[in-house]
């Protein structure tokens, strides 16, 4: 099994690498097109800002390369958002794999009387995923908790394979053909995340 993590200017690549190590998998971190094309599975991680990341990918023709991949690809967090059509974050055209738009969570203009119900952006912490579909989420119980850190979200659409509620229900995972995306961080989501990474490897 040749597992590749796409190297680009986004954070958390190390975290993904270590998470794979913890489940006994070795991965290569690279931006070499030939190595990426010949991999059995490709992980497209990401923490950071959409337009900076897209510019970096374009400068290296990684944008075209990712779209052309035919093996299973897993986008994580910003990686998933970049696989959508467009992100509201600095009005950024993205890869267009999932026909979805990425929008910013709208926090209430004024805080309610009680601080408890205030909505913070970004969402930081553990939230549950439900309406789970596809082998990527096999053996993951409904309403399992995953770790999220994000200020932008993809709405629910035809490619949604998991949902989460924050401000409103949104897509916490997407799937189309060989492409998968998760908004949460499986590499930091304890046993649930490990199960999802194992499922991806076994696709």
């Amino acid at each position: 099994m040749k597992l590749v993590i796409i190297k680009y200017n986004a954070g958390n690549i190390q975290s993904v690498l270590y998470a794979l190590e913890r489940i006994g998998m070795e991965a290569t971190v690279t931006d070499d097109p030939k190595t990426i094309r010949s991999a059995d599975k490709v992980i497209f991680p990401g923490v950071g800002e959409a337009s900076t990341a897209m510019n970096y990918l374009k400068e290296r023709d990684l944008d075209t390369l990712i779209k052309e991949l035919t093996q299973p690809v897993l986008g994580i967090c910003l990686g998933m958002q970049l696989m959508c059509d467009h992100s509201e974050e600095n009005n950024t055209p993205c890869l267009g794999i999932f026909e979805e738009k990425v929008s910013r969570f709208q926090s209430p203009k004024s805080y309610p009387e009680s601080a408890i119900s205030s909505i913070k952006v970004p969402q930081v912490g553990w939230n549950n995923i439900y309406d789970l579909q596809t082998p990527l989420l096999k053996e993951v119980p409904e309403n399992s908790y995953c770790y999220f850190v994000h200020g932008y979200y993809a709405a629910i659409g035809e490619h949604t394979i998991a949902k989460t509620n924050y401000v409103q229900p949104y897509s916490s995972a997407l799937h189309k053909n060989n492409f998968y995306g998760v908004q949460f961080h499986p590499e930091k989501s304890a046993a649930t995340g490990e199960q999802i990474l194992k499922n991806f490897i076994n696709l």
Partner: protein
Amino acid sequence: MLTKRIIPCLDIKDGRTVKGINFENIRDAGDPVELGALYAQQGADELVFLDITATVEKRKTLSELVNRISHHINIPFTVGGGISSIEDVSMLLQNGADKISVNTAAFKTPKLLTGLAKEFGSQCIVLAIDTKQEEDGEWYVYLNGGRIKTATRCIDWARQAVNAGAGEILLTSMNHDGTKQGFALDITGTLARELPVPVIASGGGGTKQHFADVFKTAGADAALAASIFHFKEIAIPNLKKWLHNNGVEVRI
């Protein structure tokens, strides 16, 4: 639903976990990586590692420790203690830290927050504030591990820091730290209400009810504690189950 987070804090000195009372009196509490892995297994939502080592060897030993932690722990963790530059942060993130916390250096040079947020994103920049309520009733910012008082009000610095790029606030009440008499509900509530970013309450957690209070009354997004977990006074699974049964959304 987004849950409230329980965060054990591990103070590190020369590679060992230690815990002081009211910022002094250091006691040994074991290997940080083993302890951290145990907490993760027990259902801790995140971990904070604060390095209080003050030697020149510190940078190297800390990055090695962070590397060990990230190989063993499957939940997010924050590293803090003496961080003062983009290079420091870059090294810690490269070794697998998810977030870093800054305190004194950010107060002295608020531009640091802006630089860090631009380079790494606000989501990984936690601003730690040590605060103390004085006789005039106001909460003031303290620096250098609580040793130096400033004339700046806690809420003013917190607002400025969030505008500069801090993505989360770790608020420690020096009046409450180590007392086990409950968290500082008023200043925590003020920050949780006034700031658009999550607030982690720290200092004073001694009973399960104290945690319920800081979540329900003060609206904290997370609560941090150290010795009650290290010395097994409250077990994390019991705490979370109790909170769940008492109407606080937690991950169990």
